[in-house]
């Protein structure tokens, strides 16, 4: 007497979804405990220290005045070069290292993963900024000891602007990464957009008066530079919003659509 065995089913209906906080912690961990991520963070910190040491040495040797804000700005400039690369690799490494398969099997709602990644990127940005503040503090103390006088001037409005521009830089890399889903391509496009395009915009604006009128609405980098002179006028906020839609929102939306649809292989 044989009875047909009931087909084996795997009942997950009673299992709660993965809490968002856990996704966030996992994504944060992915950014720091791989070889690529760890080296990137290590090099960012190392370069910031080297730049600060050179800056300190120059201002002391040349008898220049430097304030706390200047030291923080120097560290932050260095960090802002590599931070977006971290944002890019958060997304693209899932594809290049083929971890997307595991990630999206364990949490099939892909947008939750993307959101967790974006938040992890922002968290790392804040961590790097905190690092810049501490390094700047140490350097300013050293400067005081070596130079005799110490200046604690620190523009808080400028710092707020800096916080926003760093977050934008990180998210700009993130958006391009979602759009291209390829590490090399995203890094190339990001560097061209951040370091080459402003020069071309300035050239175009110098040559053509009509372009000069619209360039403020197109150039995300120069619109962000206004953030360092807070408070901004309504028109400047307008420039920022319009150029951010072009360079941040549009690539991000197309990228999210791609991630939703992409075959994970």
């Amino acid at each position, binding site marked *: 007497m044989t009875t047909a065995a009931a087909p084996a089913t795997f009942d997950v209906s009673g299992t709660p979804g993965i809490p968002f906080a856990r996704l966030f912690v996992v994504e944060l961990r992915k950014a720091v405990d791989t070889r690529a991520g760890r080296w990137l963070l290590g090099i960012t910190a190392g370069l910031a220290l080297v730049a600060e040491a050179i800056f300190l040495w120059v201002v002391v040797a040349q008898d220049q005045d430097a304030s706390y804000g200047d030291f923080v700005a120097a560290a932050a400039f260095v960090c802002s*070069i590599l931070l977006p690369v971290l944002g890019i690799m958060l997304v693209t490494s899932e594809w290049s290292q083929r971890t997307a398969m595991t990630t999206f099997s364990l949490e099939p709602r892909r947008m939750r993963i993307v959101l967790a990644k974006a938040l992890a990127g922002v968290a790392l940005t804040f961590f790097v900024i905190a690092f810049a503040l501490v390094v700047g503090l140490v350097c300013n103390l050293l400067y005081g000891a070596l130079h005799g006088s110490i200046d604690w001037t620190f523009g808080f409005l400028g710092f707020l602007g800096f916080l926003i521009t760093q977050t934008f830089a990180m998210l700009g890399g993130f958006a391009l990464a979602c759009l291209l889903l390829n590490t090399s391509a995203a890094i190339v496009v990001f560097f061209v957009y951040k370091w080459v395009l402003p020069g071309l915009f300035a050239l175009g604006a110098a040559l053509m008066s009509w372009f000069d009128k619209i360039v403020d609405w197109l150039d995300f980098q120069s619109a962000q530079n206004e953030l360092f002179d807070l408070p901004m006028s309504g028109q400047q906020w307008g420039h920022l919003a319009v150029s951010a839609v072009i360079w941040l929102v549009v690539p991000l939306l197309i990228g999210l659509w791609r991630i939703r649809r992409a075959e994970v292989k």
Partner: protein
Amino acid sequence: MTTAAAPMRLDVSSTARVPFGRLINVELRKLADTRAGGWLLISIVALTLLVLIIQLAVVLGNDLHPKFVDFLQGMNTPMAILLPVLGVLSITSEWSQRTAMVTFALEPSRMRVVMAKLVSLVIVSVLALVVGLVLGSVANVLYGSFSGNDLVWGSVGKLVLTYFVAYILSMASGFALGALFLNSPAGIVVYFAYSFVLPIPFAIGAALMGWFDSLRPWIDFNFAQSPLIDGTIQGSDWAHLFTSGLIWLGLPLVIGLWRISRSEVK
């Protein structure tokens, strides 16, 4: 009755080694027929076209009087940015795509493969220059027919030669950094940081300190290349180019080659 079978041997002692010409051919093909390489080449040509079209629209709309040289400078911009990326990827993709295993199994003298890669990069720079010259000429002719102004061709032989040298140097720098890191993102980031970001602190340092200003041409490879691209290079400029080139091109290349010859292929 059993006899021990003679151990199987693959006798390659009379097989000729892979000819160098074939290695170059293979490396050239690798640059063009992968998705990454193919798209990069297409992007370079497309961007060059785009730059020339924008330039043409601008000079026509503003009634400017460009020369052939100006169009060549226009086409040089995208080439100078993207060709070094090709240099980086030509070596790092062997590691990231794991083709190094096959490449170095079929040709175990790794330095021959590296040489073939370098030669293929030189060939690509020649091709890029030819494409750029053709596109620049077309733009100049189009400008003449649209504006009705006289065409100015001028003598560009020297400029073309300096572009060629500059492409070779930048591709070789990309290749050297690629060989140093054996990792695409690291190679690309360091190359871009060195060519776009580093000039800023160098310029600030030179403005602040007199001694650094006189030291800068000896250690800043980009700065040392500018007289080459302007076509004004002479005497001490060559010494600057050589010394800074040793730092940014020679040193990473030597360490990179050493790494390639020693590294485990996996």
